[in-house]
């Protein structure tokens, strides 16, 4: 039962105002299956995050999700898409910011804005190799330190390369 609760009409003007304030950065705003997604350029990430947190009251960053579109991206397309899932308490409205990142490009860390992004970004780095500049301690969180490769990338075999111990 797809609940359309997340698509509050009153949220729409706040986001349109946001799009107006950051003309170059906000590429598109769309609603699909009840979820609100805002596509952003790389540079606009931190200002938009800060604006959403201070003005629009999105005080909780629930998750940082990375997608590896190795096969789906066209020739010029960037390899990774980093999604920031924000939520507003009270009222529980949700917004998802999507930023495209190339394989060896870095991304500004969201830790200065949201304290809970710390481990989520470390996991994204460990699993995909997306670098976050300005992160207090960017190192592997799951795999042992001396592990080479990033397991969740599409080209990494499921059973692992060296076949374990």
């Amino acid at each position, binding site marked *: 039962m797809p*609940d359309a609760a997340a698509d509050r009409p009153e949220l729409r003007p706040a986001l349109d105002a946001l799009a107006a304030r950051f003309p170059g950065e906000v590429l598109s705003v769309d609603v699909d*299956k009840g979820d609100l997604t805002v596509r952003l350029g790389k540079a606009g990430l931190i200002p938009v995050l800060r604006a959403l947190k201070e003005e629009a009251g999105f005080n909780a960053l629930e998750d940082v999700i990375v997608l590896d579109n190795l096969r789906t991206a066209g020739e010029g397309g960037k390899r990774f898409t980093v999604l920031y899932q924000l939520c507003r*308490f*009270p009222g529980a409205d949700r917004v998802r910011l999507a930023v495209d990142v190339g394989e060896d490009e870095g991304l500004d860390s969201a830790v200065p804005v949201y304290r809970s992004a710390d481990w989520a970004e470390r996991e994204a780095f460990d699993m995909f190799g997306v670098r976050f500049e300005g992160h207090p301690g960017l190192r592997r969180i799951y*795999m042992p330190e001396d592990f080479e490769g990033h*397991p969740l990338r599409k080209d990494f075999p*499921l059973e692992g390369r060296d076949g374990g111990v």
Partner: protein
Amino acid sequence: MAFKEIDLNMGPQHPSTHGVLRLKLAVDNEVVLSVEPVIGYLHRGMEKLWESLTYTQVVPLTDRLDYLASLSNNLGYVLTVEKLAGIEVPRRARYIRVVLAELQRLASHLAWLGFQANDIGAMSVLLYGFEARETVLDIFEEYCGARLTIHGIRIGGVPHDLDAALAARIRKVLDGIPKRLADIRALLDDNRIWKQRTVGIGRIAAGDAIAYGLTGPGLRACGLAWDMRKDIPYSSYDEFDFDVPLGRNGDVYDRYLVRLEEICQSIRIVRQALDGLPEGETSAKVPRVLKVAPAEVFHTIEAPKGVLGFYIKSNGTDKPERVKMKSPSFINLQSLEHMCKGNLFSDVVGILGSLDIVLGEIDK
């Protein structure tokens, strides 16, 4: 002579780290200076594995995430897939799901109560808590044959029906829980040693709690009424009336009280769900090979440990392109450092217990 600071290692194998968590502690003669959790000792590569399985094959694996509340994981994943594929679940199935999810919350909180009390020294409460939990596990075993990794909620509905005999047995178990809880509360609630070990320990302010992304009983103990069952109701939770217990100053004692109160609320919900069980199908018609049009969706539920979220992106085939799980224990564990600073070494054990973390869910 300044006491040299010991860097203690509550290693991946320690009686009170609830599994394979390693805490690097810098301790100055019992006073904790810094705590750095090291995780990854139970990383089984779930998300990678899910990308090579069909939607229905993933469900039994979600049991193994938070293995104390496997039905909540199932419910979280299944609701996300239904939102993605647009499947309408019949009302009777939604009610049965509420009954199962709340019984699972009951079992998870009772197990937590046992572990928390055992960490602070009252080892008999571990046995009482587990005995009460066994009565709930009997219901699961009778419903679908498994005790811990239950796989009792499927895409589109529930595998079996809830007949009158099972409903009567559930009611009998629910009558037994409050009495056992009263015994435990009589033992612990006003026990001077228990209060000395829990009141004012591991305190976190409401503002910091949100900054650290804390959710679930930990957040509600700081007085913030954030409960997904009320804010974004799912699976017809809005048809039941129950209240959300809140604490005041966000310490270990308030988390203890909030969880005990939540057990009573869960019993209330299950009773209402059983009384108002509507007639109808127990599962929607779901094709054997479920192909989902390309889309992406994020959906959350209120798991016993906190807000459990699933993000699924589909690519038109029967296998998901990407499944990401937002684990409540993973986020809650980040605030351990904030809560432990300045406390004594033996409090770290109590605070870690009050966070109610499960390593299967943290390490994925």
